[in-house]
């Protein structure tokens, strides 16, 4: 066998998993989470919401179809590390441009293979998400367990500032021929490109602005609607965005996704809490309480809005997770404002809840009609 570089994953409770490096070498800490998607590692790796996290895939064979230029979800990978059972050295797909290992190395991201990710998953499921270190250096259980314990974790940390952009940019302009189009401002807390692609596909002129953009600057762009994006970490640590949302509620149509949903929840006076091990996968059943229909959704969140803390006079619960009963969506009874905890843009995962983007357009249409 060719020479392999040992790489270890050590949890804060001193549980050790020994494997081999297939990405960059070095040492990184983060919260380790498991993801149950069987396809879509490229989208997962490039999803900024994984900032601060080491992602372990439960499906055992990764790298099979390589990396291509079209399936990027952001400008670069933000996650802290990628942990798999077996990394395939050969990538086979007509769109593949490079191997997963080469891509990770290029961006300085560690990849560890040879890990029993099922045992790791069981451990996290029982003990809860925990801090961890992955390392090709200092291969000493005690030293690494201490480093894992001293890692910053997610609670109370503003990770949005680490993934948002510095300057606003235009993603798409309105097509001249489009009969009706809307101008949407996307507040980038770590936005996935497919959210922007879904808006563009619906002929929206999309401007992406940094997470710290104040409310009056957003209003100055005269948008038809505001989209609050997904993003990493603890929503309670991103008070400045919650404040922006509070000031804009009722002033223009707002659609929140994932972290955006949590920040809407906070702006409405609800509380958020950290889930034991989060939802990370592409097979979560969510019921739309308005139609009774069940959608298989893509999910990636460690925090959740506490349903009981929502003011039911002002806010309606629209979606619920059928696995654990947690809140998955809400809608304001008076303001044009709604949000979902899951990912209607999918990528990876089933695309069947993209109807929510249509609902956002309808919301902007109604608003525009009223003011026209």
């Amino acid at each position: 066998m060719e020479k392999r570089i040992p790489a270890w994953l050590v949890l804060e409770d001193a549980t050790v998993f020994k494997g081999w490096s297939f990405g960059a070498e070095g040492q990184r800490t983060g919260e380790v989470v498991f993801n149950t998607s069987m396809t879509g590692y490229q989208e997962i790796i490039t999803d900024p919401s994984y900032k601060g996290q080491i992602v372990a895939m439960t499906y055992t064979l990764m790298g099979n179809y390589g990396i291509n230029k079209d399936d990027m979800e952001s400008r670069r990978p933000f996650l802290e590390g990628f942990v798999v059972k077996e990394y395939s050295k050969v990538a086979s797909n007509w769109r593949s441009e490079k191997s997963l290992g080469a891509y990770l190395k290029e961006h300085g991201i560690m990849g560890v293979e040879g890990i029993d990710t099922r045992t790791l998953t069981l451990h996290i499921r029982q003990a809860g998400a925990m801090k961890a270190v992955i390392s090709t250096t200092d291969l000493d259980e005690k030293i690494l367990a201490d480093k894992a314990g001293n890692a910053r974790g997610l609670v109370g940390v503003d990770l949005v500032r680490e993934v948002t952009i510095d300057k606003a940019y235009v993603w798409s302009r309105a097509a001249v021929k489009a009969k009706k189009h809307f101008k949407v401002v996307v507040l980038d807390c770590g936005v996935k490109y497919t959210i922007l692609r879904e808006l563009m596909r619906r002929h929206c002129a999309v401007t992406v602005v940094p997470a710290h953009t104040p409310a009056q600057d957003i209003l100055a762009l005269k948008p038809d609607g505001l989209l609050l994006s997904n993003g990493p970490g603890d929503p309670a640590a991103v008070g400045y965005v919650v404040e922006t949302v509070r000031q804009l509620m009722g002033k223009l149509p707002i659609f929140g996704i994932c972290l955006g949903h949590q920040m809407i929840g906070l702006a409405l006076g609800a509380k958020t809490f950290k889930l034991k091990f989060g939802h990370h996968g592409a097979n979560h059943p969510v019921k739309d309480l308005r139609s009774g229909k069940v959608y298989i959704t893509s999910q990636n969140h460690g925090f959740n809005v506490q349903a009981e803390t929502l003011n039911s006079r002002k806010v309606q619960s629209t979606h619920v997770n059928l696995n654990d009963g947690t809140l998955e969506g809400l809608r304001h009874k008076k303001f044009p404002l709604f949000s979902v905890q899951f990912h209607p843009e999918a990528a990876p995962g089933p695309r069947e809840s993209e109807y929510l983007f249509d609902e956002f357009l309808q919301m902007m249409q109604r608003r525009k009609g009223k003011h026209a």
Partner: protein
Amino acid sequence: MPKRTDIKKILIIGAGPIVIGQACEFDYSGTQACKVLKQEGYDVVLVNSNPATIMTDPQTARRTYIEPITVEMVEKIIARERPDALLPTLGGQTALNTAVGLAERGVLKRYGVEVIGANIKAIKKGEDRSLFKAAMRKIGLDLPRSDKAYTLAQAYTVAERIGFPLIIRPSFTLGGTGGSVAYNQEEFKRLAKIGIESSMIGEILIEESVAGWKEFELEVMRDTKDNVVIICSIENLDPMGVHTGDSITVAPAQTLTDREYQRMRDAAIACIREIGVETGGSNIQFAVHPETGRMVVIEMNPRVSRSSALASKATGFPIAKIAAKLAVGYTLDEISNDITRETPACFEPAIDYCVVKIPRFTFEKFPQADQTLTVSMKSVGEVMAIGRTFKEALQKGLRSLEIKHYGFDSMIFTDLADIRPPDQATMDMLHQKLRLPNADRLLYLGDAFRLGMDVDTLHQMTGIDRWFLFHIKEIIDLEKELLVSGAAVSRELLTSAKEYGYSDRQLAKFWGKKEEDVCALRRSLGIIPHFKLVDTCAAEFQARTPYYYSTYEQ
């Protein structure tokens, strides 16, 4: 929606005798259906001509008719039993055909029997080639290109437009002369002429050949509320051209990106809706061009199929059982997941292992049969193996076939430590065994790698995806190291061997030892199997009634 109370008695049609293409998988699905409907309080009547089945055990249905499964006989049973409903989707093609026959003869109408699971219109739309094609075109799904021709000149124009290889099917032939394949202009000229001449109406259908394309299947379920879920994706190691029943297949799909997989998922959902299978499972097959990614729909089975049985065992999601519940009005969100109990059946299983199915052939019992694998099924059974990796599952599967192979045994070499290029005749035989699909092709691939042939060359020769070939090559590469190391193997290398699915017996053969000795050595190094769960959810939730497979981990 709770279960229906307007139906009380349900007739289930079994699959009849075991034949190639229709074996015990339909006994498995039918038995599950009988049991669950009985539990739900329905009066279950069963007809199946095969008494050597579980489903015909006296306690399975309330009344069992061991009679020929013909329209005439089932009509008599209906006249006597007066069932409220007929469930034809769990007894394979036989049951489906019988249901269509009963409907066409007006039997169902006469006795007021409702078809549940899939209605007659959906069955016809799914099974009739032209109706199916029209339905797929309507929803914008791509199909293999085809066109009709009545003269040679027309045929040449069509051929030029579609491109080779081409399938030529004469319409309405006496004795049902089948289609032929033309790979070039020469062959086409000859075959098109024969085709037009043999057709009673002088018409041929010229169809794009998708032989050699990548082949995939999705198992889909739908309920009366129109919730649709994908239970399992399957990728065939053998490309298009070999019947799925004769193909080595792998779950889940390995070489599709999420974008490509979702496109296939969307297509499968659109397909089940358009065909109109109201409740239960369907199996939908796709072909994907390996260089361009063009995806075409091949066919759909509007019923529980051989692949559903595989998908059920591969995921822990009991398709037939759930299909029976859906047929009587339950919806997916009302049924709980058998294994976790607390989460609903309305979800898509996440698997954290690799499943390989290998067909089992008995050509020794059919010495006259052409052993080349084609589009008609020739295997008499199959094995399913579960491992953490493809390599492990593949080797486990090979030794489960009970054909005295314990992994990648060589077909050519007696001494694996001394591989020399064989004579020309053997090389020619090897090339032929690689080019033409056959029962032993997998083992010949092992020999090809032993001879130093590379993945690209073998991909060209076999059409098998490079991903699968590369993993087979890794197995053979490790064999070389194991032969060099001998029994003085390091713990690391032996662990890798076990992770690659090598059995102690194979290693004993490599090293000239006894199996017990290798086992003892392995244990002394602390390398022991672990048992992991098939739990539908990749360990995300607690499993109450899982089943297990053995594997090795670091």
